[in-house]
């Protein structure tokens, strides 16, 4: 560095120090309310599609807001398309994202679990013991599994019978390794949950991907879906695809055909249903769900286990200044999808920026569009456009729907391409 440059650098540094001191002095003189208005604090709990998208959009909407994103894991494993890891179409690494770019954009990362919320004092307690004060809190905790929903299944049992249904990459990897290690001729049992649940087509896409893998690698093996329901989303599209691609490999047992699980024996590797007893080689048990733990602690979940919100601002109907977005929120007819979560994050950010600015948030219109990849070059989708009607999201009449039943292979291949494109674009927007 030249002498001249050193002088310049020194001068700049002195300027910054002087300015910072002046700012602090002025801030100290301001009444609390004015200070809060000048630099509002938003804490966002949960760094998935909804929470991270909200952090990114809020940063872009208003540079003055102090934003902290609280997330326990340093690496996020994205659930959409993760069934492709089981099918051998994708690597787990393609599902994983860090928070460096979000931090670089000016969001403070707090890598810890949120353990408590004081809605009156407006602060969040972290597992580190730190307390983060907020003006507005956004909870995007995703789902928590109901460990008591299936007799014989538990959090401990998940180490042997993976659910692979959260953003825990180790669970997906465990399921993948179990299927790869199983002898040809074995049975993979998938226990599908009741609604409402995260990613309604997910269990059926998963069954398809596992069948795809078995068909070429272990052709004497089978997949059975033991379902707590009598119908599911995109049902006819899935059934047609299975008949075409995986006849004699994949079987769906509905509730009324005896799919309801009565008991699971982890040691004996058996699942007892209302009518039958299944001896499995690998079991993927997806239990019933509810909003993530912190939603209960914050008092924003109702008796259903999910969180009622105002559809315009996503503010909790049970606690002021706390917003709930993503899978944890009750969003009417909208499915619990990553697509919807990412959009909810943006809308919640816009609403919060408006509320801080003293403006009225606009009534939103939302889209959810979910792809299910049933084979390479073969995807199906369900789309919906939603708007608030009488305080709840309803589908806009005449819009949305599923892929046509009679589409040509080129159409299915195009949808598979769009599934990939959506994933790349949305994860780049959020994490890139």
């Amino acid at each position, binding site marked *: 560095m030249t002498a001249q440059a050193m002088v310049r650098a020194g001068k700049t540094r002195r300027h910054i120090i002087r300015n910072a001191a002046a700012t602090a002095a002025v801030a100290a003189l301001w009444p609390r309310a004015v200070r809060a208005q000048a630099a509002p604090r938003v804490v966002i709990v949960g760094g998935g599609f909804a929470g991270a998208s909200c952090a990114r*959009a809020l940063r872009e*909407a*208003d*540079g003055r807001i102090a934003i902290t994103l609280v997330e326990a894991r340093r690496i996020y494993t994205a659930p959409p398309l993760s069934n492709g890891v089981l099918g051998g179409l994708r690597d787990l690494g393609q599902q994983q994202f860090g928070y460096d770019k979000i931090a670089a954009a000016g969001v403070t990362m707090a890598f810890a679990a949120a353990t408590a919320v004081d809605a009156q004092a407006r602060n969040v307690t972290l597992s580190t013991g730190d307390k983060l004060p907020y003006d507005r809190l956004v909870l995007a905790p995703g789902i928590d599994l109901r460990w008591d929903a299936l007799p014989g299944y538990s959090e401990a049992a998940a180490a042997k019978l993976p659910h692979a249904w959260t953003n825990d990459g180790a669970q997906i990897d465990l399921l993948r390794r179990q299927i790869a290690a199983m002898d040809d001729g074995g049975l993979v049992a998938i226990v599908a949950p009741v609604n409402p649940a995260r990613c309604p087509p997910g269990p059926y896409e998963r069954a398809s991907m596992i069948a795809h893998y078995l068909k070429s690698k272990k052709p004497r093996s089978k997949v059975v879906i033991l379902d707590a329901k009598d119908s599911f989303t995109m049902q006819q599209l899935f059934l047609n695809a299975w008949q075409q691609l995986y006849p004699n490999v994949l079987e769906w047992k509905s509730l009324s055909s005896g799919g309801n699980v009565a008991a699971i024996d982890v040691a004996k590797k058996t699942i007892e249903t209302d009518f039958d007893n299944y001896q499995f080689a690998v079991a993927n048990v997806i239990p019933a769900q509810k909003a993530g733990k912190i939603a209960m602690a914050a008092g924003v979940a109702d008796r259903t286990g999910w969180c009622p919100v105002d559809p315009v601002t996503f503010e909790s109907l049970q606690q002021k200044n706390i917003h709930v977005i993503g899978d944890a929120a009750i969003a009417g007819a909208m499915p619990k999808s990553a*697509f919807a979560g*990412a*959009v909810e994050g*943006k*809308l919640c950010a*816009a609403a919060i*920026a*408006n509320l*801080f*600015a003293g*403006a009225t948030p*606009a*009534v*939103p*219109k*939302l*889209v959810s*569009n979910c792809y299910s990849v049933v084979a390479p070059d073969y995807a199906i*989708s369900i*789309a*919906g*456009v*939603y*708007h608030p009607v009488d305080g709840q999201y309803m*589908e*806009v009449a*005449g*819009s*949305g*729907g599923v*892929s046509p039943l009679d589409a040509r292979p080129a*159409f299915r291949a*195009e*949808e598979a*391409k*769009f599934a990939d*494109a*959506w994933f790349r*674009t*949305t994860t*780049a*927007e959020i994490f890139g």
Partner: protein
Amino acid sequence: MTTKATILTLALALLPARTQAAMLAPPGVAACTGCHPRSGGDPALPQLAGRNATEIVAAMNAFRSAKRPATVMDRIAKGFTDDEIAAIAAWYAAQR
């Protein structure tokens, strides 16, 4: 850039940042960038920012009336009114 878009851009530039945050992005836009990249894209999934507003309106109308073949945009376009489509198109046209 059209004169109308230039005027809109200038008007936006003159507004304080927080008012911009309040008025930007009409209903529906939050969902577009999930699939349509902010920059780049390809003919099947084009970037929308900076595109001519008339083109966007025409495309949405063609999707809505099933005149233009689509995998999913026909299903999505049917959820939007003329006014909403016009607002979305104007907003995207004003983006650089």
